[in-house]
């Protein structure tokens, strides 16, 4: 679990992120910090890069993540931030947060993260067409670091169970809609129906 938290914190806080939304592969941005990320697949080949300030990690050019690969990252804050709280959001929802003492007064860090620490199912859910917004924020004594951007996957859309789930849900919805049309009928008044009498 801690490895997952670390991976996600890295993805958010080093500005994997890096970009203002909805712009083409233009310059990315981060506030109070800077960083860069190099994403590699299982074979060790580079499949994407992003940096802040710099290019990559935008909605139009999201950073590909291979859950069988690795991510090399480095980042630094503009000032020493201590006694901080941090949070990571993905898809618009905060799902991880915590505290960060930083008693050593560190302002820069780097490393290589094995993405296999993430749940393997993510590798099939994330398609290479998706753009998932990810952001990270560290706020504490000495300053604030915020970074945001977009990630994507490496599998084809039709290989993802999300595609089939969406198709099935859509078909169920259409079928129920047809039921609404078929079931909307004019009913005779009770008096007319009562006149039918009984059959022995």
């Amino acid at each position: 679990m801690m490895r997952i938290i670390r991976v996600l914190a890295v993805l958010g806080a080093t500005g994997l992120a890096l970009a203002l939304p909805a712009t083409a592969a233009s310059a990315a941005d981060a506030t109070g910090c800077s960083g860069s990320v190099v994403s590699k697949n299982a074979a060790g080949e580079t499949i994407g890069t992003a940096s802040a300030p710099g290019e990559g990690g935008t909605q139009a050019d999201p950073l590909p993540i291979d859950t069988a690969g690795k991510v090399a990252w480095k980042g630094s804050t503009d000032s020493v931030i201590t006694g901080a709280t941090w949070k990571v959001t993905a898809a618009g929802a905060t799902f991880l947060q915590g505290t960060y003492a930083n008693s050593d007064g560190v302002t820069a860090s780097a490393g290589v993260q094995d993405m296999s620490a993430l749940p393997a199912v993510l590798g099939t859910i994330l398609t290479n067409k998706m753009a998932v917004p990810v952001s990270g924020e560290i706020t504490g004594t000495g300053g604030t670091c915020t970074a945001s951007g977009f990630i994507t996957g490496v599998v084809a859309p039709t290989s993802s169970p999300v595609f089939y789930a969406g198709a099935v849900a859509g078909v169920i919805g259409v079928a129920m809609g047809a039921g609404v049309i078929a079931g909307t009928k004019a009913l005779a008044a009770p008096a007319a129906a009562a006149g039918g009498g009984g059959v022995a």
Partner: protein
Amino acid sequence: MTTKAHRHPILGFFAGLFFGFGLALLLFVFGVLPVTVTWLAILTVGMAVLGVIFAYTTPVRGGT
């Protein structure tokens, strides 16, 4: 003789709910929309509301 329309707003609600949820997933998968809970909620709830409206406005079969 009077007639009364028999409509299905609850069925329409769930029809829209399923359709909106499925549509959202497909738009996410193909990158038409960014994957956010906001878009998921807008499409799912929005289509559910439209489903109810649809149920109340769809033409009545079998006379008026």
